[in-house]
């Protein structure tokens, strides 16, 4: 029987009678301190016996013992359904175990209606007990750590940003907090592809923000009316408001601003023949370096470039990107062996405008389609001496 009785927050309003005096308690689960349950003690033996034998539905149990999560609005709380949970009779007590952990900062109220007890005998009076979970700290600690690409000049047909946070963030209505401001101080209207699902990584510390493909200027004819999101020669700021809450419910410690200039569009496919591979020395753990002639997508550069040894086995090691994502380095876990190696790159790698290897972002659809959705790779051999 759990004993972590939380007297400090417990508000017990029992009016006891000598024969049967039901009492309500909120009990902390010893095995999982995040879990709480409600117990009714002081029940008569015959009532307990009947309850043990009863085959009540959840609705029947809820008439006897209900637990509500209060939203702080007395009128609004009327008619709200009781909390979902399981009922059991254990060691002369009726126990309600909530289906979900309690929410910090929220007040819960358990109410016991003895007139709904089965059988005859003394029932005692209505009791109710409120319990408030201590609120979470709302001290703002989370910040935007970095936004990629980091280059000062971005192509007019930029495809996406990655926003990295120092801690997990909260999902829902995120686009309200992100603005693209032009050099006249005006917000660009709807520049991003707003997707209800929101493109987070599983840990929710990285958000992918695509520029709406309908707002990327292409060809020679300018977009009319709404215009492109980004225009060559102008300056912009990506602004992230501090009101955006992290997963713990606290706002960001400070707002974030990234200023950048927009350069000409990039409509060229990536050509790895233009990459400079700088081989390391044998029997060292020197970094293998690749210098790209243009910045490469931050996420893909880390995921789709691999280093293979002479037997075509993938080598383990650390990947780093530097110099505005133009310099890729790989430090192997083991010393380099002498001989032939290769850098293997999936053709789906992208530059800042979404161009792939051998295929520009904009293509005639009936050309080059074969290259999609394959894991085709390009190999760049190098020699370790």
């Amino acid at each position, binding site marked *: 029987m759990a004993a972590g009785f939380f007297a400090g927050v417990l508000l017990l309003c029992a009016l006891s009678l000598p024969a049967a005096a039901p009492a309500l308690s909120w009990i902390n689960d010893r095995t999982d301190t995040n879990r709480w349950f409600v117990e009714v003690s002081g029940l008569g033996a015959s009532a307990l016996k009947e309850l043990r034998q009863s085959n009540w539905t959840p609705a029947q149990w809820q008439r006897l013992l209900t637990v509500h999560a209060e939203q702080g609005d007395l009128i609004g709380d009327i008619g709200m359904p009781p909390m979902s*949970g399981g009922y059991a009779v254990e060691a002369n007590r009726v126990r309600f175990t909530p289906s979900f952990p309690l929410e910090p900062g929220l007040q819960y109220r358990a109410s016991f209606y003895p007139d709904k007890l089965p059988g005859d005998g003394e029932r005692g009076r209505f009791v109710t007990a409120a319990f408030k979970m201590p609120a979470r700290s709302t001290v703002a600690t989370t910040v935007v750590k970095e936004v990629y690409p980091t280059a000062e000049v971005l192509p007019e047909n930029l495809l996406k940003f990655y926003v990295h946070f120092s801690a997990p963030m909260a999902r829902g209505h995120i686009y309200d907090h992100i603005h693209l401001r032009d050099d006249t101080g005006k917000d660009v209207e709807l520049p991003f592809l707003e*997707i209800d699902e929101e493109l987070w*990584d599983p840990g929710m510390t990285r958000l992918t923000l695509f520029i709406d493909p309908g707002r990327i200027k292409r060809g020679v*004819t300018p977009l009319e009316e709404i215009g492109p999101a980004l225009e060559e020669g102008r300056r912009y700021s990506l602004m992230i408001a501090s009101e955006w809450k992290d997963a713990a419910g606290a706002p960001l410690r400070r707002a974030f601003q990234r200023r950048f200039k927009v350069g000409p569009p990039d409509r060229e496919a990536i050509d790895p023949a233009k990459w400079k591979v700088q081989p390391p020395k044998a029997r060292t753990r020197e970094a293998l370096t690749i210098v790209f002639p243009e910045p490469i997508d931050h996420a893909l550069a880390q995921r789709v470039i691999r280093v293979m040894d002479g037997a075509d086995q993938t080598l383990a090691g650390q990947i780093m990107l530097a110099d505005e994502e133009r310099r890729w380095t790989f430090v192997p876990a083991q010393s380099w062996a002498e001989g032939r190696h290769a850098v293997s790159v999936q053709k789906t790698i992208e530059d800042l405008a979404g161009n792939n290897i051998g295929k520009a972002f904009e293509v005639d659809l009936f050309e080059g389609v074969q290259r999609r959705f394959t894991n085709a790779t390009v190999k760049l051999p190098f020699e370790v001496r």
Partner: protein
Amino acid sequence: MKHIVRCAATVLAVGLFSTIASAEGLKDGMKEGKAAFKSMGPLAFGPEGILFIADTKSAAVIAVDTADTKAAGAEKALKVDGINQKIAALLGTATDQILIDDVVVNPISRNVYLAVSRGRGPTAIPVLVRVKSDGQPEVVSLDKVKFSRGELPDAPVEGVVGEGNRQSNPRQESITDIAFFQDRVLIAGLANEEFASTLRAIPFPFKTVANGTSVEIYHGAHGKFETRSPVRTFVPFNIGNEPHLLAAYTCTPLVQFPISDLKPGAKIKGKTIAELGNRNRPIDMIVYQKGGKDYLLLANSSRGVMKFGTDSIEQAESITTRVADKKGLGYETVEGWKDVNHLDRFDEKNALVLRKGEAGALNLESLPLP
């Protein structure tokens, strides 16, 4: 002023499906036990009370036998104000910790199923909630149900990537819509790294291995240069007697292609039949019959709910030149259907919508089909 919408074309990969449904029952391959979810995304009902639930975080679609197969009684309207507040109370949390990610109607029982996220961070708990005709929400327990899993083909492998230099794989493919059609589940998705929009078909009942190879679909529009854009929502739909898919893209071309074209190695050219304008996101689509005619309803972010007569879809000419804002198929905006977040068919005569009410409330209500 005009503007040009040029986000139309896309390249879609469709996993192959078995061509013929075998004689086995749809539930034969299901196991009984706890159906575990990391997330709950789009929902779709198949036959026999089978609910397909997309789990983006697991890169899978789970088919759950809801056993909810008792036919609905007489037609009865449904209206639940503040369903998000009621669900918050049911799940013992605050309203701002509830996100409703999809809403569908079981076509047999007319019970409404909602994919709910309890919490908004990475530890949020996905919960399936059902609303019956009494308007009260209840948690659908998935601890002991019959279910089967369909893993997404080419799904990213969880765990270490990049030669041991990183502890987790940040790549994830968001499932933006699913539908059941004949013997397969159709799944639209969008990755959070490479810009690849996919539409897959996986056979149902799910097979343990082999999800098939991919074919590619794309549609030509707007001249030579095309870019890719994600499918936001789609609906299987008969044109003449031939099943088609009607797909709405994030920047709103409406595209159709015959499902029979989805064959190994095929290059499919979809037909762009309408441009619905910029500053606009499609949300959900349904098809229905009224007065012997077929109609399509499309809910979207800025133009309310649009109604199309589908006889005009059959005759629609493909849009192949750059267009100024709206073009193609004519539509009417359904008056009074504002701020719709989700849309499904409720019964023969009614639609079900989840829409914004007062002071942050979301209301669930059936509305007569226009």
